[in-house]
């Protein structure tokens, strides 16, 4: 039986009067890729911030491998790989220096893992150049590489392909697909529904902080009688513009 790696149970978060996330519950098993989709302001990044231990939930629990996670639980943080939406790296440092710094934060000494990750994300040739000179695609690949350093049990990617060229996007999606094949549980948010169709075993559609529907692509299209994920998404979240 496949083991559940991530279990969110009734996660809720408010900012003043605004409900950012309301009673969000879902699970991700070993080797499964779960896509969390939603329009702008749906609560995806807030949900992820609670899952990776950046933000305290007002209510609800996050469990990783059955252990309750919190902002202070460094043991659980050590098994989560996090790829934030913004480029979480230092522009004045080189790719190698960035990877070394974050590797040390995860207690990884030595250079072998850093060199391995540089190969995985295809940055060996530019490893000693400052990140400030990188293209958007290269910086995105480094951003993902940092999230892979600790051999995560759970990899959380928040819109990792935003603003990258098709080649880099393809390389990123291939890498994420390979990781799931190696047993890593992957939580993936994106605006690109074709990415979710290609990558995700199951999808949750989040809107105004609430999970509107969840299932495989076939289950979701069958549920609302639409032919593809984009039509399902628009049916569930509406067609009006979001800020």
């Amino acid at each position, binding site marked *: 039986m496949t083991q559940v790696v991530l279990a969110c149970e009734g996660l809720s978060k408010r900012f003043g009067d605004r409900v950012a996330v309301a009673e969000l519950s879902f699970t991700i098993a070993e080797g499964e890729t779960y896509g969390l989709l939603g329009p702008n302001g749906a609560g995806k990044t807030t949900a992820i911030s609670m899952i990776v231990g950046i933000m*305290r939930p007002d209510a609800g629990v996050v469990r990783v491998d059955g252990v309750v996670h919190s902002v202070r639980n*460094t043991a659980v943080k050590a098994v989560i790989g996090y790829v*934030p939406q913004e480029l*979480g790296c230092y522009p004045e440092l080189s790719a190698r220096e960035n990877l070394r710094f974050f590797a040390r*934060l995860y207690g990884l000494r030595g250079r072998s893992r850093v060199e391995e990750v540089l190969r995985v994300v295809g940055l060996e040739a530019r490893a000693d150049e400052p990140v400030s000179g990188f293209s958007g695609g290269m910086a995105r690949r480094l951003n993902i590489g940092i999230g892979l350093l600790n051999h995560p049990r759970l990899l959380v990617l928040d819109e990792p392909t935003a603003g990258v060229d098709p080649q880099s996007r393809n390389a990123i999606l291939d890498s994420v697909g390979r990781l799931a094949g190696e047993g890593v549980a992957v939580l993936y948010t994106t605006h690109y529904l074709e990415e979710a169709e290609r990558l995700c075993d199951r999808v949750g559609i989040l809107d105004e902080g609430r999970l509107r529907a969840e299932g495989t692509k076939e289950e979701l299209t069958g549920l609302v009688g639409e032919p593809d994920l984009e039509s399902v998404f628009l049916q569930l979240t509406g067609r009006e513009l979001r800020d």
Partner: protein
Amino acid sequence: MGTILLKDLRQQTREGTVVLFGLVLPLVLAFVLGLALGDQPAGPGFDLTTRLAAGSSVFFLFFVVSGMTGLLRERHLGTLPRLLAAPVGDAAILGAKLVAGVLLGLLSMTALVLITTFLYGARWGPPLQVAALVSATVLAASGLSAAVAAFARTAEQAVNQQGALAVVLGLTGGALFPLPRTGWVEWVSLLAPHHWFLRGLEEGEPALPVAVLLGMALVTGAVAVARAGRTLRP
């Protein structure tokens, strides 16, 4: 904490502002003021060279100890979420920022004491007394600077406010020229760490100045840590 601290020290020294504000500008200011003031008396217990060296050093110290501003820079860069998601405690992140500022402040002041002694012939006084005053002043400056950064929204805002505070406290504390020790001027000057640092050196009795400076460091440091801790994780 050590990993973040080393990275912060490397980043700040690479920027070059530490060398500029922590070494070059104080030496230039002390030299230029020395030329301008010529043989004017410096006040009791102090020769003019030493007073200018000490005043210039403590004036620019406030531009060096802005370690906590690094927290705002991390937020701007998008690296703060990554630090918060890593298996390190909040105390290690905050501590590294504070300690980086303190270390750079100590390094700058130590270098300035040595260089002005050998280059300008400044006579700072007994080494242990000077070390106690320098340490307490660096801590007070770090605390004040951190408190300002903790209430700022951006790194740019923090740097501007810290700069304004450094100039106001420097002037009221008598860092650039001595102020009359009478009336409201004296009362205002008591709020500036610069006043206590210079007074300790001038009178050769560092116990009270060190105690006051450490008190300032404790209060402002506690405010900074409490405020930064709350804003770190909404």
